[in-house]
């Protein structure tokens, strides 16, 4: 009887040598005359253990990691195939605390299955949501999504059902579903992981969205930094078409739904929804003034749903299990689950899907194990480059859109980047402006010019050149950018800047560099 060995094909696992490990695992088995089948699964999300090799045993899947090619002979010697003890062993994967403590709804299959196997997808509950949606009237599907309380996971947390209702109500000869897979925020990789680890769930979610609002065409706009995810999604689309899930009639029962994957071209601003639409149309990715809302006049001027990968990938679970089951998770107005991404200087970095309401400290210290360097934690940035920096004493805040807003932060796409005590917060503030200047679409002055001025002002503060006057100037500049920018790139850049200044003023008050001294 053959033994199944799982070696992930997720890009993060590949970045730590998973391909070489998979090959060497197979070669070593052959050398020893062992009958093994190597399965390339998605990642379980415990990225500090990648490549995480799992062996199927009678008790369940047993985990070993991080496995290097040099460990493989030793693993076989230790009785890997029956889950034998080894210093890299972690016992049953699903009993590892980091995994066991999650509520995996959207990521239920990610890491469990071969991402491109439709049979495995179906065997693990895939397509149940779509089947339910096909039996309902469009308005009933929209209602279900509304009742689930799902809010957009791309950053702005706008209620998904309400957006869908607008597009459903818009009359047009053509409507579109656009998936925002531009995932540009530092510290985030949930979109990438689901696209690589369970691509059919995104396709299913988009097909449901199509049925719900009467759209027959969809696009997935994937950032070019994700060539691997792009390849997986393209292949998954081909297979879904061949199986009749997509195409002239969704699952042979519904209206048409055609799907295409498109590559971005290295512009952060193209994650902003209207800029993304212009980019899809083949133009410069410049932000459009709103109104009109994309839900009414979006891609090529047609009513368009634009949602983040995780928003869309959450819909199949909601349809399959019901809005109430989803809304039963979470707290306050943050319903359901969020795939939190622990990143940066953290001991156990990875994806942790959890109901809202857990504390940041639990996530970072208990689950994440504190800093990677072992030095004291000094700051965390939540919500990507436009999110605030928080000091250690704010970590008792709960994971909840409103709770994080209450400490003047932004949960965004759920990335948490940890910094140890070596961080220089004045440099981080400078970088926030620098990044904004690099990535500005150039449409409005507060952002295009303001970000450049911001870099200069912070430089002068660091150099102790008229510090007080420049502090006042910085305040003014930030208010101007906050109030006067057309989109959140210019509008939120002051958030990391001012939070750094507010919580870590000492970093802006260091003795002047000799040259710049007054």
């Amino acid at each position, binding site marked *: 009887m053959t033994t199944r060995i799982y070696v992930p094909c997720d890009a993060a696992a590949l*970045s730590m040598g998973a391909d070489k490990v998979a090959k060497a695992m197979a070669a070593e088995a052959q050398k020893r005359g062992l009958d093994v089948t190597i399965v390339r699964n998605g990642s379980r999300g415990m990225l500090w253990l990648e490549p995480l090799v799992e062996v199927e045993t009678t008790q369940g899947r047993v985990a070993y990691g991080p496995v290097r090619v040099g460990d493989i002979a030793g693993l076989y010697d230790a009785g890997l195939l029956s889950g034998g003890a080894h210093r890299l062993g972690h016992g049953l994967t699903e009993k590892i605390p980091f995994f066991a403590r999650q509520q995996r709804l959207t990521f239920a299959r990610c890491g469990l299955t071969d991402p491109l196997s439709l049979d495995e997808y179906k065997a693990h509950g895939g397509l149940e949501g779509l089947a339910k949606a096909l039996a309902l009237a469009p308005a009933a599907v929209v209602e279900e999504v509304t009742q689930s309380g799902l809010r957009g996971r791309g950053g702005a947390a706008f209620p998904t059902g309400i957006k869908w209702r607008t597009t459903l109500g818009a009359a047009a000869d053509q409507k579109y579903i656009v998936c925002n897979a531009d995932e540009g925020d530092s510290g985030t990789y949930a979109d990438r992981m689901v696209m690589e680890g369970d691509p059919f769930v995104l396709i299913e979610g988009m097909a449901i969205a199509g049925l719900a609002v009467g759209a027959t065409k969809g696009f997935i706009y994937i950032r070019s930094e994700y060539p691997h995810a792009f390849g997986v999604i393209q292949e998954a689309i081909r297979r879904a078409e061949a199986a009749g899930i997509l195409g002239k009639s969704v699952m042979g029962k519904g209206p048409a739904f055609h799907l295409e994957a498109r590559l971005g*071209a290295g512009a*952060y601003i193209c994650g902003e929804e209207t800029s993304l639409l212009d980019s899809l149309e*083949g*133009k410069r990715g*410049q932000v459009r003034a709103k109104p009109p809302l994309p839900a009414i006049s979006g891609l090529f001027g047609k009513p368009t749903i634009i949602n983040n990968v995780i928003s869309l990938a959450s819909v199949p679970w909601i349809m399959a299990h019901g809005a109430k089951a989803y809304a039963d998770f979470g707290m306050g107005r943050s319903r359901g689950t969020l795939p939190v991404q622990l990143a940066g*200087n953290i001991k156990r970095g990875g994806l942790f899907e959890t109901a809202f309401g857990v504390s940041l400290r639990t996530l970072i210290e208990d689950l994440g194990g504190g800093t990677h360097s072992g030095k004291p934690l000094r700051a965390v940035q939540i919500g990507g480059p436009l999110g605030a920096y928080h000091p250690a004493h704010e970590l008792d805040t709960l994971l909840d859109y409103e709770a994080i807003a209450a400490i003047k932060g932004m949960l965004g796409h759920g990335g948490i980047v940890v910094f140890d005590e070596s961080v220089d917060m004045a440099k981080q503030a400078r970088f926030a402006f620098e990044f904004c200047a690099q990535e500005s679409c150039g449409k409005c002055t507060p952002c295009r010019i303001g970000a450049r001025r911001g870099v200069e002002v912070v430089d002068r503060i660091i150099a102790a050149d008229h510090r007080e006057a420049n502090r006042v100037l910085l305040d003014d500049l930030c208010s101007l950018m906050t109030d006067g920018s057309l989109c959140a790139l210019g509008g939120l850049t002051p958030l990391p800047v001012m939070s750094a200044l507010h919580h870590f003023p000492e970093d802006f008050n260091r003795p002047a560099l000799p040259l710049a001294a007054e």
Partner: protein
Amino acid sequence: MDAAQSKVPDFDEARARLVIARLAHLDGALLPILHELQHEFGYVDARNVPLLAEALNISRADVHGTISFYHDFKSAPQGRHVLKICRAEACQSMGCESLVTHLAQAHKLAPGETTGDKALSVETVYCLGNCALSPAAMLDDELIGRLDADRLDQIVLDATGMRS
């Protein structure tokens, strides 16, 4: 543009026209075509601009504006290998800037530059989605996690084919 880059790169109009014709039917065809041209030639030659404008029935200014907006589209050939180093926050927290410094000191190579033999170009990127395994980089299409100075040295040596 240095002397090596300004020598006429090999551009083949017939081949460019084929690429354009193959994809021109797509909705919003310009980006897919530009990616394909970049893939085919290693950069997007300015001589594509009129061809694109004609095929897609848009102005040359629009074509040029689009090409220049996106970091991905290069106006001149890159090195044979491209190393993208992530310098966004998560990678900063794990010391990516010291790797950039190392590259400059040990290999006289800064982001935005190409080695003299055109073997390796180095670029800055902001996030590769590998932020739990920072510092991250991408060599051609291969993602790298936990990049360190030794690995960086190896990449430079392998790309430039130097034997130590």
